[in-house]
């Protein structure tokens, strides 16, 4: 069942820096003035990338019906990839009256028989939380019978935001899986990658580079992750949090329980990627490793400069405004600067105070009211390109400048060194496209 105490602790997380003044991302949602996903969605995002586990949603069809196969989280798993599949107990009126435990047990048996997964995650939803299904007991009984981990995830939507759901999912993994398997030997430079879900293969942009330096990725939560690996996560020497403040709690607890320190990094853009690699090797403090890292960073940066050269000509001197949310308000800004674009301003309406502080280091102007300030800034600074969510498209059309939708599900990775080339290519295409000047043209019958 839902653990109120745990939720309260997670919301008061001491390792969470924005907590000191304002619980921006942790506040209760306001009726009639709320956007963004629920705790269930957060849990789903955090755990679905485990492709070798089945993800069973215990609730009516809606929670899953609208959300399966929506995220391009890639995996190299060779068995049946469960990430893009949707499993749901489809709770109906009858189950609500008589309880859904039996249906859940039946569903678990069906999955074990037909799919033979490495583990099953069972997601509690609002309805099954309210009718008081004993999910813990059903999972425990089934686990004993089928001899695979069956992990209840108590993150029904109504307990809070997506962010909280990610934390609860992390807790479920920590309690049920981490430390339940021992490796054959322990790697001296083993790390866990925490919070990268390998959307469009972001992780694969930098993982091979880390491996070339001599670092071993023991496990991942959860991009391209495996159940057996996360079970051995306690044997890593360092936790690396990738652009995800929601999992700080998990890392702090792993530090307490297993004495694993953690670093928080971003792999967006050239500078951040190089800095991320340095933070990781510095945490190990091994001189040879640090030297190796510097050599490889130099190699990669030189290769990148070569690849970006054709774009520089087109992008040099171009001015951009960025309007997106959270850590993207500075991470994409940094990446844009790396490809030679001058970022005039970035919107921090939906960013935490910590993000605002970082954004101000990268970008001269941070603004909070895009409706008013965006058009003004475009005029004042003669901006060439607007990178924002779909809502701002009309602003770009009206001002006849190029537009890139940065909130839409992206199709290619913008991560690490390799991803920068993708970003440069996308920005160049937008700048070269005549459509933005054409589409806002007056109709023949509007001309005087």
């Amino acid at each position: 069942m839902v653990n109120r105490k745990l939720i309260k602790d997670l919301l008061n997380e001491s390792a969470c820096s924005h907590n000191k003044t304002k619980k921006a991302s942790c506040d209760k949602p306001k009726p009639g003035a709320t956007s963004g996903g629920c705790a269930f969605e957060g849990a789903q995002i955090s755990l679905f990338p485990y492709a070798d586990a089945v993800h069973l949603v215990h609730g009516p069809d809606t929670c899953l019906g609208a959300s399966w196969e929506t995220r391009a989280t890639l995996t190299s798993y060779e068995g049946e990839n469960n990430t893009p599949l949707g499993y749901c107990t489809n709770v109906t009126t009858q189950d609500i009256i008589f309880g859904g435990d039996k249906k859940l047990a039946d569903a678990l048996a069906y999955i074990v028989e037909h799919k033979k997964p490495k583990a099953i995650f069972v997601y509690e939803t609002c309805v099954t939380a309210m009718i008081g299904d004993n999910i813990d007991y059903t999972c425990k009984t089934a686990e004993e019978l089928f001899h695979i981990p069956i992990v209840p995830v108590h993150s029904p939507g109504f307990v809070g935001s997506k962010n909280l759901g990610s934390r609860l999912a992390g807790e479920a993994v920590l309690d049920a899986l981490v430390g339940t398997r021992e490796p054959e030997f322990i790697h001296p430079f083993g790390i866990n990658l925490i919070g990268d879900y390998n959307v469009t293969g972001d992780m694969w942009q930098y993982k091979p580079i880390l491996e070339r330096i001599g670092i071993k990725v023991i496990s991942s939560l959860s991009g391209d992750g495996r159940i057996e690996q996360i079970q051995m996560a306690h044997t890593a020497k360092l936790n690396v949090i990738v652009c995800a403040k929601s999992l700080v709690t998990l890392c702090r607890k792993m530090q307490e329980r297993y004495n694993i320190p953690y670093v928080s990094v971003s792999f967006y853009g050239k500078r951040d990627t190089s800095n991320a690699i340095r933070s990781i090797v510095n945490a190990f403090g091994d001189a040879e490793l640090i030297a190796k890292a510097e050599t490889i960073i130099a190699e990669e940066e030189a290769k990148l400069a070569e690849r970006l050269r054709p774009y520089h000509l087109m992008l040099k001197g171009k001015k951009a405004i960025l309007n997106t949310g959270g850590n993207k308000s500075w991470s994409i800004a940094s990446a844009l600067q790396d490809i030679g674009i001058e970022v005039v301003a970035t919107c921090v309406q939906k960013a935490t105070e910590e993000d605002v502080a970082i954004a101000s280091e990268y970008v001269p102007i941070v603004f909070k009211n895009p409706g008013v300030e965006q058009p003004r800034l475009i005029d004042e600074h003669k901006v060439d390109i607007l990178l924002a969510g779909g809502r701002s498209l009309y602003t770009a059309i009206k001002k006849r400048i190029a537009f890139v939708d940065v909130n839409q599900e992206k199709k290619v990775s913008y991560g690490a060194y390799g991803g920068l080339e993708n970003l440069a290519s996308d920005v160049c295409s937008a700048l070269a496209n005549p459509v933005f000047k054409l589409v806002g043209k007056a109709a023949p019958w509007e001309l005087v």
Partner: protein
Amino acid sequence: MNLKELRTTSIKPLHVNPLKLSQPMGATLAFLGIKNCMPLMHGAQGCASFTKVLFTRHFNDPIAIQTTAVNDITAVIDGGDKGISEAVENITKKVTPDLVGLFTTGMTETKGDDIKGATLLLKEKQKMVYVHTPDFEGGLESGWSLSVQNIISQLIEPTTQIRKDKVLVIPNVNLSPIEVEKLKEALELMDFDVLALPDLSDSLDGHLGVKQGALSSGGISVSEIEKLGDAGLVMSIGRSVKKCGEMFHEKFPQSTHLHFDSLIGLEACDAFYAQVLNYLGSKSVPSVVKRWRARLQDVLLDTHFTLGKAKIVIADEPDSVYGMSKALQEVGASVEAFISQRSEIQDAFTCGVRIGDFEDVEALLPQMDMIIANFHAERLAHKHHKALLIRGFPNYEQVGIGLRHNILYEGSCAFLCEVNNLLGHQ
């Protein structure tokens, strides 16, 4: 509990890759077909968020929706009225909706909120319609239909007047915005004054608006709805909305109700014109209609070579599957149908039909040539090397979803040709 015993259960205890979408999602779309409306989903924030994301990606357009954001505390101590009034207050601080469409979810139905009472308390402040749409019952079609029924019973003002040339069209949820427009145009050509409820034809048709507001960008206006009572003819398209037409006729007995299960294929279109002409007491149609019928006749003959030998599995909402299956069978195709939820239309099918999920569809797929379903079918079609036509919600892969026209003589031609050509290039 003995799990070993339970393993022998014959009914599948879960959905694997579900086909079903929920009632609240159907209600959302219905309210988006009303001008300056704010759909307000009474549930946890995620219900509205998932819905918003799905339709935004499907239509490639902004979707107006708000949530009462019930949390685990208010779920227990609030009977609903506090959250709902707070939501309305917060919405009206920013925008001035002509209507707030309030509908429930599984969670708020489980706790049994009195949404009628909550709406009454807000009567002076905001015009509202309330609908019960638990997601553990029904699906997309019934959520849409229930909303229309409640709009009819709660909004339309009583009248004794009647205008024989005014027609109210009630489309089912599967009709695309342009299909609604084409249907309205077809009736306007026959000198009707036409209104559609809901009317997605100018709200989700993918037009570049002057500004992207927080409310629905078009549709039938609330004042038009209130004055619908004098419509001499009410026309329901699709079995899921038949009850809406019956209800209108019950409330305004002087009206005539015509019902059509489908508007795809020669038989269905002929039935449509036959009944409309009968109502008008006329035998004449505009020449463009005659021309398109003749073109459809030709298309039927041109496509029967390929389609006559084709084996096609269709998986979608019941009314949508019914229409397509009938049209394809007219040219000799063998069709297997999967529907997302129970429906009255089940008995009318002339091919195999069952309620199922994509796991069931996949089991049958190796014996078929083509699959028609939503974008989730793409993975299956690739895996089994089958032709694919994407229809239904959601479709994240393609653009121009709102512009698709597959009804009446003209649209039927387009549909049959598209299926034929996809099969040819397999």
